[in-house]
């Protein structure tokens, strides 16, 4: 969890292991619209200690379920304008299938289980909490 921009290149370097032939990453950014409404930015809040614990569990699960060498993830908190990176997930593996699949798995699990909440700031000045992804 980070309350300021993260050096993604440093995270990526951690994945560049000699035995890793594939590196896959996902970058989630603040989009300019949601559900047809113009967005100026999103304020991300989190339950920090639990978010870290859950994130570590997800990364450990991914390492157990997929043939990967390393995985890392970071999620921003605070107000992010359109275009800012909110979440970054990176995976390295010997082969591409495991890297792609684990990256998708970690991304989906973070969205569903890590206690982070989006408060969208609309262009008209109104704000609103995003309803759940899944129930």
């Amino acid at each position, binding site marked *: 969890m980070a309350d300021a921009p993260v050096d993604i290149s440093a995270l990526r370097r951690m994945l560049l292991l000699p035995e890793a032939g594939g590196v896959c990453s996902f970058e989630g950014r603040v989009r300019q619209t949601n559900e047809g409404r113009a967005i100026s930015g999103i304020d991300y809040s989190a339950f920090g200690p*639990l978010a870290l614990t859950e994130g570590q569990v997800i990364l450990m699960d991914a390492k157990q379920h997929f043939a990967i060498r390393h995985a890392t993830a970071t999620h921003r908190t605070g107000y992010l304008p359109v275009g800012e990176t909110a*979440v970054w997930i990176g995976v390295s593996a010997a082969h591409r299938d495991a890297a792609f699949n684990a990256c998708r798995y970690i*991304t989906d699990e973070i969205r569903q289980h*890590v206690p982070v909440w989006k408060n969208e700031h609309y262009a008209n000045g109104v704000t609103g909490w995003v309803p759940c992804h899944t129930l």
Partner: protein
Amino acid sequence: MLNIELQYFAQLQDEAGRAHEIRQTQALTATALYDELRNAYGFALEPACMRVAINAAFAPWEQSLAEGDHVACIPPATGG
């Protein structure tokens, strides 16, 4: 009576008008405590769509509360 430290997030924080409080309660479980809080603050979220964290770890809603516990009701995650 138990003294419980409560932390509110997202829409629950808006509805309660606060992020933290220490509350005296006769509730014995997280379920009973959330019922009490719904009466106090009019929370719209149903417990069925949330999880509860006791002392910063997910716990069953029926877990017994103890003096000084930190309780946070966790609205559905929307990060990523």
